[in-house]
């Protein structure tokens, strides 16, 4: 186990390094005006040069990259240039991550509680009306543009129930609608995959054997089908949980939640390259760590997955 974890950890670190370097170099390809705000044309050569030097941008790219890594090792992501000038990036995003992660974790709990039983019920009644109803629900949630149905939820739910329209950190009542909106797409996702995995399992020979032995339908479903179908679901849970810190662009802007959702777009539009760099770094590492944790969790849940054998293609 230890060796496997170590090997996977090394691979994760390597891909993280490649991603960061790639993004760093890509962002250096952008025109320099982006770094200096809107009034570049009016500045003289010396001022431009001084400004670039102050930000360490006059050095060659490898040196900049090295400096970036050295600061990163100290937990310093650098300072924002334009979004909030000369404020530490860590300071800017810390409170935002807290809010997004709080809402996201609750939404995820809700979507697991609703989505998994939904998928299980649909699989048990395959081809009958609960299955058809659920499929319709899932197809609609996945296919209709979420930017649009979130708006309708906000409009009609606030009218119908009197819930507050905007998010307020100190009033938990105002969290309900954002959480429901956040949960809906993942309910559809969990429901769809749970149904598909369970239907796959139901056609397996061991299920037929269990039925032939006379095991009751409920026991077959709970003890055999559900447990086996849940294993592939487990793999995605850590990364979904970690990705909640990314926030949701649509939901957070509709309810004006001061979270991470719109931040990346915002700093991109203002061309704040250090912020873009830091955010992409965070999100990419979250993805890699999530995958790593998911693989390990799957091994823990399913004893049949061997650690020493050849890695199974996902």
């Amino acid at each position, binding site marked *: 186990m230890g060796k496997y974890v170590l090997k996977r950890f090394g691979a994760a670190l390597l*891909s993280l390094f490649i991603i960061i370097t790639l993004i760093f170099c890509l962002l250096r390809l952008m025109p320099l005006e982006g770094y200096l705000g809107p009034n570049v044309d009016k500045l003289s050569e010396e001022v431009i040069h001084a400004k670039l030097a102050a930000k360490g941008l006059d050095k060659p790219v490898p040196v900049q990259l090295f400096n970036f890594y050295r600061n990163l090792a100290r937990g310093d992501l650098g300072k924002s240039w334009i979004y909030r000038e000369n404020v530490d990036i860590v300071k800017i995003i810390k409170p935002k991550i807290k809010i997004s992660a709080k809402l996201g974790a609750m939404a995820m709990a809700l979507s697991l509680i609703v989505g998994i039983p939904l998928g299980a019920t649909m699989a048990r009644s395959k081809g009958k009306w609960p299955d058809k109803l659920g499929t319709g629900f899932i197809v609609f949630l996945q*296919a*209709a*543009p979420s930017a649009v149905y979130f*708006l309708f939820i906000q409009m009609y739910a606030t009218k119908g129930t009197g819930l507050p329209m905007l998010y307020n950190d100190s009033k938990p009542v105002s969290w309900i609608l954002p959480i429901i909106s956040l949960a809906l797409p993942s309910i559809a996702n969990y429901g769809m995959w749970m149904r598909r995995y369970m239907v796959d399992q139901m056609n397996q020979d061991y299920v037929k054997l269990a039925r032939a032995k006379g095991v009751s339908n409920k026991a077959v479903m709970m003890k055999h089908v559900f447990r086996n179908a849940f294993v592939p679901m487990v793999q995605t849970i850590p990364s979904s949980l970690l990705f909640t810190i990314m926030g949701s*662009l649509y939901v957070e802007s509709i309810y004006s939640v001061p979270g991470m959702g719109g931040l990346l777009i915002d700093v*991109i*539009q203002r061309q704040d390259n250090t912020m873009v760099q830091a955010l992409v770094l965070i*999100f990419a590492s979250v*993805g890699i760590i999530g995958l790593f944790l998911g693989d390990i969790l799957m091994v823990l849940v399913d004893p049949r997955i061997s650690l020493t054998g050849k890695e199974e293609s996902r």
Partner: protein
Amino acid sequence: MSKLFKKGAVMEKAAEGMADQLEQALKNSLPDDLTPEQTAELTPDRFEFAEFDDTLAEKTGYSSYSYWRSTFRAFWNNKLARFLLIALLLLILFTVIQPHLPGQRPPAQIYDFPDGTVMRNLQPSKEFWFGTNAVGQDLRSRVWSGTRMSLFIALIVAISDNVIGITIGILWGYVRKLDALLTEVYNIIDNIPRTIILILISYILRPGMWTMIISMCCVGWLGMARFIRNQILMIRDRDYNLASRCLGTSTRKIMFRNLLPYMVSVIMLQTALAIPSVISDEVFLTYCGLGMPKNIASLGNLVEEGRKMMMTSSRYQLIFPALVVTFITVSFYLIGNTFADASDPRNHV
């Protein structure tokens, strides 16, 4: 060896033919207790010995099963999918011929009242079926021209996803030396959230139609390539491929003749599902301000414009484009899934 094989096959055929004959004979045989009318029918020539029939003996147990015909029949039996397919084809046909119909307005034209004020945010009426937008343009012609634009983008992205995904997937699965490298590349790209890649590429290049297409192509091929690779790993070492290789078939021919036909149904499914995801990506990118230029109508632009009108009485500006988006995406989803079910031979009766 070959002689033995041939002989076996002939005997098998003969046995099948005899079984066939026997079955027919049993069918034609009559029950024991006969009515007088039936007895009258029993003419003496029905009691003659049957000769061994060579043509019947050659008859094999061949059924006229055709994969594609059965697939389409299974698809066609689903009423909802049939309806959506026809409706979708009509919609696509309509968006293509709409500019050539008489009495259509150009989508970029701004309309004024006779007194010179601009016709802003007019509610749907006889004159403007879908109303006008905040700039005073006819929303109906914008919706159709936007649909045309978005479908065009979706088509290009779906085709290039297919080409890139299939090529890389086949190489990935078939060429052992490339496996480790491509797995690493895949892991790296797949680990970064799709939205971040979309945003980053649109940011680095200049926003516009081709930037959007390029960024979507960069993430779109992943799913297809992985699927093709897994399929190929499964069927690469089956006996018929081994035999083919022993007979000296070139690698290229094995890839395209032996492996690819197995995956046609899945490729069609992926293509059908790529189109809705491209449209929703376009809406997303426009929302981020990285989409098409504002003056060009596309479904993303229209939804984004309408979204700002949601809380006012001009809600129709969101509803019309959103309805079109929802219809297109839902129908592609359902058609794709029904087709995938239909292409599974276990569902062929």
